């Protein structure tokens, strides 16, 4: 008998849970929009005729919005104050009731991606997370007006840092996301500041530590490679997906960098840290950024010095350590309500304006990205920012870099530390390089046509040849240009064996006489449509003009 009752109880419990969840299904994201009913009506009715609203009457944006802002711990109070200022200053009748929560710039991106719905409407984040956030749909694109303002008032690097494929997705907030060297004047001979080897020797002699976070963070590890002239440049499409990479860490220059880094990481004085607190634990040098200035000053007082990074010398080559110059950005979470979205963007504009950035500098020593604010006398007198400026000629602007690169680059220092000899160093660089290639996840089976028609991009799938029982075929449109050439390669590679020398049919269509053809390229005489077939077994290419 009771079995039935049990079944009922179970069933009823399920009905409740289903009914409760099922009902809210469509409305979830729109839920926390405008607050009180009256004000919500106000915004929606005026929204119908906003463009014609004459000056002086209520803006279509007027209303009270409840928002959540994620700011780093130190900036919470300041952000609250700035939002209050905005409420009283703006002409649109926008009023924000904001809760400001402390979420560090380093973690904001991960938290947003974990649950976009629950994320702050505005959030401060460091540039390394930008690419991930765009891919994850965590950033709302800037409107045309806002984009124009950002482009005209901020420095060029800042604009690049917050755009993908020409579209802006965030507001530059600070331009101080770079690192340089803090040192203890009593422990380091200032004449040695230019040389990494001398500094390490000073530290070892004085039994002091040299703190450089190369094992814990790719951001710092890249310093040695940039110093040696290596690059790691990534290209994205308009959606923020990574399509190509030019990475030269695994090269002769990279080897020099690896040897330089080995000098540091194998030293007993080396500590993997970027924390200014290390000064209280016996550090003489800490490589860190402007945000560490106040802490370091509190510990060392007048003994604190700040300088550009030193140089290292390997096999007679002297390389000045480079750095990333990056930005901290302010992001707006995408919403479905245009009025709310526009109002949030207004607030973001205010927070990142010249005034807002200067205020942030004065309160928190955050270096501004705004061109006018950078010219401010106080900003130029800050020792941390001065050192950063001295380092600027050696810095690499941080572009869009895939999230996994930071994890790949992190272990390179450990591998270099463990390497016993030059072969070990080369192996470390090689392993780094193969991981980089893995990131793009190129399908290396089959063949693609690489050449002038696709900008010599050997990672792109677009010119992939279709496999028909061992004969790879592609119908190619060759546009008019000076050099209408290219060849067949395996994706991600540059093999030169499948070029004009193995063309058996259609030789009359290609230019065999060109003297600049060192790579055995197939160079067409005329633009047009060609059917190219590569027979893998026979190793022959046939070309037919359509």
């Amino acid at each position, binding site marked *: *008998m*009771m*079995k*039935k*009752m049990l*079944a*009922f*109880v*179970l*069933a009823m*419990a*399920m*009905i409740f*849970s*289903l009914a409760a*969840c*099922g009902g809210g*299904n*469509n409305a979830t*994201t729109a839920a926390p929009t405008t607050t009180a009913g009256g004000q919500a009506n106000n915004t929606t009715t005026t*929204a119908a005729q*906003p463009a014609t609203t004459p000056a002086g009457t209520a803006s279509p944006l007027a209303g009270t919005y409840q928002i959540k802002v994620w700011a780093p711990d130190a900036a919470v109070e300041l952000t609250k104050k700035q939002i209050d200022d905005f409420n009283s200053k703006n002409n649109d009748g926008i009023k924000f009731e904001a809760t400001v929560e402390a979420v560090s710039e380093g973690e904001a991106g*991960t938290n947003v*991606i*974990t649950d*976009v*719905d629950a994320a702050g409407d505005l959030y401060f984040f460091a540039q390394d997370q930008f690419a*991930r956030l765009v*891919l*994850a*749909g965590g950033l*709302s*694109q*800037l409107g045309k007006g806002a984009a124009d303002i950002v482009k005209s008032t901020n420095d060029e690097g800042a604009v690049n840092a917050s755009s993908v494929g020409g579209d802006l997705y965030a507001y530059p907030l600070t331009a101080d996301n770079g690192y340089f060297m803090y040192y203890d004047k009593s422990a380091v001979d200032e004449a040695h500041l230019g040389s990494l080897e001398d500094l390490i020797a000073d530290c070892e002699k004085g039994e002091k*530590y040299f703190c450089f976070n190369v*094992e814990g963070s790719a951001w710092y590890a890249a310093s040695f490679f940039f110093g040696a002239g290596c690059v790691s440049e990534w290209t994205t499409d308009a959606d923020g997906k990574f399509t190509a990479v030019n990475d030269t860490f695994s090269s002769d220059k990279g080897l020099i960098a690896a040897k330089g880094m080995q000098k540091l990481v194998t030293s007993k004085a080396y*500590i*993997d840290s970027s924390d200014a607190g290390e000064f209280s634990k*016996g550090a003489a040098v800490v490589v860190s950024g402007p945000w560490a200035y106040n802490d370091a000053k509190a510990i060392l007082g007048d003994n604190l010095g700040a300088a550009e990074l030193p140089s290292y010398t390997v096999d007679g080559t002297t390389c000045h350590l480079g750095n990333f110059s990056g930005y901290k950005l302010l992001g707006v979470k*995408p*919403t*479905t*309500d*245009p009025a709310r*979205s*526009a109002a949030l963007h207004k607030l973001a504009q205010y927070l990142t304006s010249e005034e807002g950035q200067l205020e942030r500098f004065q309160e928190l020593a955050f270096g501004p990205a705004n061109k006018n604010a950078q010219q401010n006398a106080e900003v130029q007198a800050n020792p941390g920012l001065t050192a950063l400026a001295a380092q600027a000629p050696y810095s690499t602007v941080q572009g869009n870099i*895939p*999230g*996994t690169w*930071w*994890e*790949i680059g*992190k*272990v390179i220092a*450990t591998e270099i530390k463990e390497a016993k000899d030059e072969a070990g160093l080369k192996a*470390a660089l090689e*392993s780094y390089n193969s*991981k980089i290639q*893995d*990131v793009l996840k190129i399908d290396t089976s089959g063949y693609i046509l690489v050449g002038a028609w696709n900008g010599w991009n050997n990672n792109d799938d677009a010119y992939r040849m279709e496999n028909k029982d061992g004969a790879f075929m592609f119908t190619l449109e060759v546009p008019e240009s000076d050099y209408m050439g290219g060849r067949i390669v395996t994706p991600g590679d540059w093999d030169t064996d499948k070029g004009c020398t193995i063309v058996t049919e259609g030789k009359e269509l290609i230019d065999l006489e060109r003297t600049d053809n060192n790579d055995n390229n197939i160079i067409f005489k005329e633009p047009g449509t060609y059917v190219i077939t590569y027979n893998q077994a026979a190793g022959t290419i046939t070309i037919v003009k359509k």
Partner: protein
Amino acid sequence: MKQYTDLEYLKLSKFRRGLHKLAAFFLSIPRAIAGLFVKIGLFLKNAALAVGREIKDIFLTFKNGDWKTRLSFFIMGFGNLSRGQILRGVLFLLFQAVFIFFMVKPTGGLYWLSMLPSLGKEGPGKAYDPVYDTYVTAFNDNSFQILLYGVLTIFFIIACVITWRINVRQNKLAQQILDSGKPLKSGKDDLRSMVDDNFHKTLLALPLAGILIFTVMPIVFMILVAFTNYDGAHDGYTNALFTWVGLENINTMLGIGAGSKVYAATFGEILLWTLMWAFFATFTNYFLGMLVAMMINKKGIQFKKGWRTILVMTIAIPQFISLLYVSKMFAQNGMVNQFLQSIGVLKGLNYIPFLSKEWPARISVILINIWIGIPYVMLIATGILMNIPQDLYESAKIDGASGWKQYTKITLPYMLFITGPYLLTTFTSNMNNFNVIYLLTSGGPPNPTASSAAGSVGFTDLLITWLFKITTGAESQYYFASVIGILVFIVVAIISLVVYNLLPSVKNEEDFQ
């Protein structure tokens, strides 16, 4: 292999006996596996027969039933209502009404079911709003909700089928009872029986429903995630839909098929260390804890309570605090190294890489785990040791047994008998010991050969911390986390089943009765 009689066996040397046991164990494996398959076969056969019986019964009920019974096949509870069992009838009818309403309403059961095979058709879109000069996002299908509610709908349908079956059987019974001339139970009788002869069911209803809703369904849901491409770039709602990918993720993790082998290699490496860690963490704590308890229990030891209190202090301080503090202490320029430098054991800036090199770090975490694990075992062992009858020891002493003999023949068997299941649960929980590893080393030092693409893996990473890194890492690959979860479950289940059956507490139940 040769079968020995008891006498022959006892005549063998110790070494030969061990060899014999070992051979017998390995020879028994094929038989055990065959037995398992036979059991599974029997189970399937019985299940099929049971389903066949049910269907036959339903068919016969319809064939032999009167019109009330037959109509109840389509309107649940009709038979109950027409025969005067109002309460049951109303409940059945209500259930059917709710079920139909839920299934047909917009974005109801039918919608979820129809979307389940594709997990959504239209992803989110972005549109420019020229009036406000801003971009707004249009959110469409939500793969996550489709998967969740799809699973719920399936559970609901199963519940409905079961209820329908009960409804049919009730009609059959009611008909039989009426035919035999007895009265049917009224609603009052039903209510009374809920607190009387069926009281156990009343009590169990809530916990059972809770387990089903809060444990079983989430597990089913999470397992299904392993077969999708749900990750940071396909979160199913805000950026892109996710969809089914079949066994692809499991194949990648196990290195089956053409795909990249880095995950398989990393998985193997971490699994090996996880098992090593679980073994050492469990048994070092167990034996050392027992030793400490025995030392404190020894006659003539002063301040017993004091010693115990000191040890229990480590339990009183939250691990979050103590472990983070300890990890700072053992850092390169932490307190321990600086102390050793200042007393001259280490010259200059030399240091011991407690947590920054592969094997030192692995040994350090095991040693530090001893420090926080011993008090627990000590507390348990103290209670048990006090319970061992003293006359056993006295007679052993009279027979001239040494202390070690007493330990291996009396104390250890007694302890193992009682704490066998505890050992097993400790082993499994150590396999998933997130706190100690993550708070001490965060999985580090980094392991350069393990793929960075799989979330920067370190030498002390356990599967559980790797799982955490994968979900919070650059790509938030939730599907890999789910795959790892499933694999961890399989490993733990195998170990638990095998070890459980070997436990003295299970094998020789009557030994210490």
